[in-house]
C-alpha cells in the first residue's frame, strides 16, 4: 500500500499558515470531491482542526502512482495558494511514518494539550466525512480503525487522560484566572455553539456559576447548547451588544473571515465597555477576532497559538505517562504493519495451499478407486495422512513468508514462490 500524509500542524506551522489551509465542513466535502476526481484509485481522508490540517491518502497503485508533490499541489490548489506561501511549513510523511503519526494524533500525543479528548472525535468525524463522500476505502478504513483502537488503549492503559483537560480548560485555568478572581458573577459569552464551545462551558460550569450567553447563527443549535448549560441564547445580530456586556468571550465559529474587526470593535463595543477588562479566547482557525482587537484598552485577546506556553506546563505534568503511551503506539503500529503485510501475502498463501490441495484430492480419489474395499476408518486415516503431508510441505515456505513479512512486504519472496509453484499473478 502506498500511504502518504501531507499537512500542517501547530508544531510546524504558525496560525497564519494554518488558517489559510483550514477547511470548514462544506469546504471539506468539496475538496474531497475534487480530489477524488483528480487522484485516481486513491483513498483520501481530510482532518482539519484548529491545530492541524492533514490529508491522508492511500493508493493501490505502484509507489510512483501517488507522490507527495501531487498531494501538495492538490491541497494548495484548493485554497489558491502558492508553494512559496507555505514553504518549510508543511509536514510530509510516507508509509509507516504515516501510521505512527496518525496513531499519535488520535491518542492526543500530538495535541497542543496532551490528553484532550476532542481530537479522537475529530478523527472519527474526518473519517466519517470521507466515507460519506466516498473517498475512504478499505485501506484507510483499516488505518483509521487501528488509530481509534490505539487511542482507546492509550486512554485506558495510561494516566494521560486522567483529569479531563482541553484547550479551553487550560486557557481558562491558566490565563483567564489571571484576569478574574472568580467566574461566579461573570458574563460569559460563547460565540459559536460547536464542540469546543461545549467543552469550554463544561469547564466553566465546574469552575463556577457564571452567567452564560450563547450567540450562534443556527438558532436551534444555539438554543440547544444554551439550554444544556443553563444559559441564554441570543440571535446573531446581538453579537455587539453581548460583547459589550461580556467579561469573558470564547469564540469557536468556523467562519472563514474575522467576525470582529478592530473598526467594528471600536465602533460597537469599546464605547460601551468603559475599558472594563475583557478576556477574549479565540479558539477558531481561521481567527474570529482580528489581532488588533487585542491592542484595545482592557482587552486581553488570546488565539490558539498564544496558549503554547500554558500547554507546555500541561505537557510537562503528564510527561511521566509518555513512555507507556509511546510503547502502545509502537506496539500498535507494528501490529498494523504486520497485518498489512499479512494481507499482502494472503493471496499467495491461499493459492499455494490450493495448488497443493488440488493434486492431494486428485491422488486420494485415485487411490480410493484402486482400493474400494477400504473401510471408513482406513479412509479417514489416509485422508489425515495426506493433510499432514501437505501441511508439512507448506510449513517451511509459509514460515519463511511470515518471517519476511515482519519487516515489510516480501515482494521478492512472493515473486519466487509464485514462480516456483507456478501460481497465477
Amino acid at each position, binding site marked *: 500500500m502506498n500511504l502518504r500524509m501531507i499537512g500542517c500542524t501547530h508544531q510546524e506551522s504558525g496560525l497564519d499558515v494554518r488558517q489559510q489551509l483550514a477547511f470548514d465542513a462544506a469546504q471539506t466535502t468539496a475538496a474531497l470531491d475534487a480530489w477524488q476526481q483528480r487522484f485516481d484509485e486513491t483513498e483520501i481522508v481530510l482532518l482539519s482542526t484548529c491545530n492541524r490540517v492533514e490529508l491522508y491518502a492511500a493508493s493501490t497503485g505502484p509507489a510512483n502512482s501517488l507522490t507527495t508533490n501531487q498531494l501538495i499541489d492538490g491541497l494548495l490548489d484548493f485554497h489558491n495558494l502558492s508553494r512559496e506561501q507555505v514553504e518549510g511549513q508543511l509536514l510530509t510523511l510516507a508509509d509507516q511514518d504515516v501510521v505512527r503519526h496518525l496513531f499519535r494524533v488520535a491518542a492526543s500525543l500530538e495535541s497542543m494539550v496532551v490528553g484532550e479528548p476532542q481530537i479522537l472525535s475529530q478523527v472519527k468525524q474526518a473519517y466519517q466525512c470521507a466515507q460519506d463522500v466516498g473517498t475512504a476505502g478499505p485501506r484507510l478504513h483499516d488505518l483509521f480503525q487501528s488509530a481509534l483502537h490505539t487511542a482507546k488503549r492509550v486512554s485506558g492503559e495510561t494516566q494521560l487522560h486522567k483529569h479531563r483537560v482541553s484547550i479551553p480548560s487550560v486557557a481558562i485555568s*491558566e*490565563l483567564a*484566572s*489571571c*484576569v*478574574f*478572581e*472568580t467566574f461566579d458573577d461573570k458574563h460569559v459569552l460563547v460565540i459559536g455553539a460547536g464542540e469546543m464551545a461545549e467543552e469550554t462551558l463544561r469547564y466553566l460550569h465546574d469552575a463556577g456559576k457564571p452567567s452564560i450567553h450563547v450567540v450562534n447563527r443556527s438558532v436551534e443549535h444555539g438554543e440547544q447548547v444554551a439550554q444544556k448549560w443553563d444559559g441564554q441564547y441570543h440571535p446573531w445580530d446581538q453579537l455587539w451588544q453581548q460583547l459589550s456586556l461580556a467579561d469573558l468571550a470564547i469564540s469557536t465559529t468556523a467562519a472563514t473571515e474575522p467576525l470582529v474587526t478592530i473598526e467594528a470593535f471600536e465602533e460597537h463595543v469599546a464605547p460601551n465597555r*468603559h*475599558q*472594563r*477588562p475583557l478576556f477574549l479566547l479565540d479558539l477558531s482557525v481561521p481567527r474570529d477576532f482580528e489581532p488588533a482587537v*487585542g491592542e484595545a*484598552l*482592557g482587552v*486581553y485577546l*488570546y488565539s490558539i497559538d*498564544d*496558549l503554547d*506556553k*500554558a500547554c*507546555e*506546563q500541561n505537557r510537562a505534568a503528564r510527561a511521566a505517562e509518555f513512555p507507556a503511551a509511546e510503547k502502545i503506539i509502537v506496539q500498535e503500529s507494528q501490529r498494523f504493519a504486520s497485518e498489512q503485510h499479512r494481507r499482502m501475502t494472503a493471496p499467495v498463501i491461499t493459492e499455494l495451499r490450493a495448488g497443493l490441495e488440488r493434486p492431494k484430492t486428485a491422488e486420494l480419489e485415485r487411490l480410493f478407486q484402486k482400493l474400494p474395499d477400504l473401510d471408513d476408518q482406513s479412509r479417514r486415516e489416509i485422508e489425515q495422512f495426506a493433510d499432514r503431508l501437505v501441511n508439512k510441505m507448506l510449513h517451511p515456505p509459509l514460515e519463511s513468508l511470515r518471517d519476511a513479512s515482519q519487516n515489510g512486504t516480501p515482494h521478492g519472496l512472493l515473486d519466487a514462490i509464485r514462480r516456483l509453484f507456478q501460481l497465477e499473478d
Partner: protein
Amino acid sequence: MLTGINMLCFFASYAIALGLEILGLWNRVRLRRVALLLMASVGLFAHTWYLGVRVAESPQAPLTSHRDWYILAAWALAVVYLTAKFYYRKSSMGLFLLPAVLGLIAASRFATTVPLATFEAPRFWGRIHGLFLMLGTVAVLLGFVAGVMYLLQSYRLKHKLASGDRLRLPSLEWLDRANSRSLGAAAFFVGGGFITGILSRLAHTGSRNFIPWTDPVVLSLGGMMVWLLAAEVFRLVYPAARRGRKVAYLTVAAFGFLVLVLGVMTLEDSLHGTETAAMEDAAEDAQ
C-alpha cells in the same frame, strides 16, 4: 533573652524572606516556602516585640517619634504581607510588599527619635492625627504595590507572558479591587490626618489660632490630600477610571506624593520638631 531584639533582627529576617521570594523566580526548591514563612514570621515576631518594648518604655509609643511612626507603618505592612501569604500561597506578592517594609524600616534609621511636638500637649488629637497618617501611609503603600502589580500583570497578559512564569501575581480583578479600596482608604485617612492635625494644632495653640499653612510638611501633606480626594472623586465620577490601569496610575502617583511628604517630614520638619516653639514665639512677637 528577648531584650536584645533590635531593628536589625527583624530587618534581617524580612531581608532573608525577600531573598527567598527572589530565589523563587528561578528555582522553587523544596521547603523554600516553609523557610520563607518562617523568616517572615520570625521577623514579625521580633518587630512586634520591639514595638511592645517601646510601648513599655514610653506610654505614648509607638507614635511618639518619626522613627516609631515608620516602624509601626512597616509593622502594619508586614502583617498584611504575612496574611496575604497564607491566603495566596503561591503568589509572589512579597517581591513588592517586602521592599516597602524594608524601605520603611531603613527610612526609620534616618528619622529622628525626638518626641513629636503634637504629643506633648493634647494627646487625644495628636494620637488620632498620627494614627490616621500612619494608616494613610500604609494605604498609599498598599495601593502603590497593588498598582504596580496590576500594571505588571496587565502588561504580561497583553504580551502573552503571564502563563508558565514563576512570577505569580494575583488576578487583575483582585488587584483592581485592592487598588480602589486602598485609594479610598488613603483619601479617608490622609484627609482625616490633615483635619485632626489642624484640630490638634488649634487645641495646642488655643485662642492664638496659629496654623502654619506655609510649612513644607503642611503644604506637601495638603497637596497629597487634595490629590487623593481628587483621585477618589475622579474615580467615582468617571466610569473608565473606576477600574484597571487608571486606578493603578492614580495610586502610583499617590505614592509620589507620599515620598514627597515623608522626605519633607524627615528632612525639614519644623512643625512637629523643636523649631515649632521658635516659630510660635516669632508669631507672638509679631502680634
